[in-house]
């Protein structure tokens, strides 16, 4: 506990250190008794719309309040698309109790560890322009993205970008994370997010020197060929199967049809990840989803485990001779038989499944 509130001796020499503590944290500066000094203390002054950071960083804070890290709009979008009422008191109550831990304040990226993993100062109250991949980014985005990127899933290698010394901020910059003042419906609707083409501009061009890049330009997402198996969520949202057993996440690899076509993602085929949400997931909160099947439960995925060479790149036959890597109706039936999917998900995922593909 003491490490979480320890301030580095040289903090006072920094720009933020020259600001009086009470200017941001309130409390009482003139007394030495702990309880008295902490009267009116604001532990996290960067949180909320009254963020203390806005005093000096007004423009950034104003935009950030509309960003996905604050609004978590994707939850509301998904619920609305399934016919739920995301503006209702019941949904907000459930959200605050179960989902709101992932709200990220300015401080939880720039000076402290997120509350969801225990909080506390990370570097003696030093403010860092770039968040720490370990203490901040993967503190929240750890069990899926972080594990993929660092090669923590058994038998799955780390992302080549990680091996090359890159971290989260090399792709996900402040422009994306602070936002542009608009609120995307979800993270894949965010036009400020990174694309492979940002660093590999000719990769999906029909003029590419790589034959397979030229052939599949704009039809096949990069990850389809360059990703390897990744975690699929069975325990996050649906914890109990028919036999009342808790399923862990499962490592899998599925190619599906793109149901989130945009100018940035014009692809026909993408990787999809199972994010199970059962028709009765929100029943304990009295929340219904009358259009449950309106949204697939196999959703667009961009696994952070990129490899130059994968089983998919070994030959054209990896994809064109077999549907073994694809999300097929038979595959869904098997998941239902194993108790990992609900039968209602068949209808929900009809736009995603692949029943056949053309030859090379």
């Amino acid at each position, binding site marked *: *506990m*003491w490490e979480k*509130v*320890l*301030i*580095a*001796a040289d*903090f*006072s020499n920094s720009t933020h*250190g020259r600001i*009086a*503590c*009470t200017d941001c*944290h309130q*409390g009482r*500066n*003139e007394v*030495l008794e*702990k309880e008295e*000094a902490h009267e009116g203390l604001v532990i996290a002054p960067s949180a909320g719309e009254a963020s203390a950071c806005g005093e000096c960083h007004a423009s950034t804070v104003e935009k950030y309040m509309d960003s996905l890290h604050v609004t978590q709009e994707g939850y509301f979008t998904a619920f609305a698309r399934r016919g739920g009422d995301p503006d209702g008191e019941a949904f907000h109550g459930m959200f605050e109790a179960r989902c709101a*831990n*992932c709200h990220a304040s300015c401080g939880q990226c720039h000076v402290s560890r997120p*509350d*969801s*993993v*225990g909080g506390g100062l990370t570097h003696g*109250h030093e403010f860092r322009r770039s968040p720490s991949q370990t203490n901040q980014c993967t*503190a*929240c*985005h*750890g*069990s*899926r*993205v972080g594990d993929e990127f660092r090669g923590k899933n058994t038998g799955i290698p780390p992302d080549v970008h990680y091996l090359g010394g890159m971290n989260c901020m090399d792709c996900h910059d402040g422009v994306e994370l602070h936002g542009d003042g608009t609120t995307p419906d979800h993270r894949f609707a965010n036009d400020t997010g990174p694309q492979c083409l940002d660093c590999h501009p000719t990769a999906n061009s029909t003029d590419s020197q790589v034959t397979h890049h030229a052939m599949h330009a704009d039809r096949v997402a990069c990850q389809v060929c360059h990703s390897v198996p990744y*975690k699929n*969520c069975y*325990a*996050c949202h649906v914890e109990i199967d028919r036999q009342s057993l808790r399923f862990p*996440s499962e490592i899998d690899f599925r190619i599906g049809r793109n149901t989130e076509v945009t100018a940035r993602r014009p692809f026909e085929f993408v990787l999809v990840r199972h994010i199970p949400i059962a028709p009765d997931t929100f029943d304990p909160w009295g929340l219904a989803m009358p259009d449950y099947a309106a949204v697939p439960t196999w959703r667009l995925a961009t696994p952070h485990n990129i490899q130059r060479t994968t089983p998919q790149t070994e030959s054209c036959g990896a994809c064109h001779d077999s549907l073994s890597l694809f999300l097929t109706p038979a595959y869904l039936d098997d998941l239902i038989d194993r108790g990992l999917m609900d039968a209602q998900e068949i209808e929900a995922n009809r736009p995603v499944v692949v029943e056949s593909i053309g030859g090379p």
Partner: protein
Amino acid sequence: MIANSQPSASVSLTRYVVFTKLAAASTAVVALWLAGCGGNPLDPQPSATASDCVGCHTDEALLRKVARSETPPVEDAGEG
């Protein structure tokens, strides 16, 4: 006959020793007070030189003494 009021050498020495010890003890008490240790070394107080929050929060020894016991960490509620 005027009485000899000068103390004997042994008495003077004794008084000198007592005075010296008292002076040393007084100095120590004042020094401890200035150090802000108060009357109970097991209940540390911040240094009297600490004038604001930073004075306490940069004092690792003090924080170790007064830190609350840790509550169990929140189960990782990340995106999965």
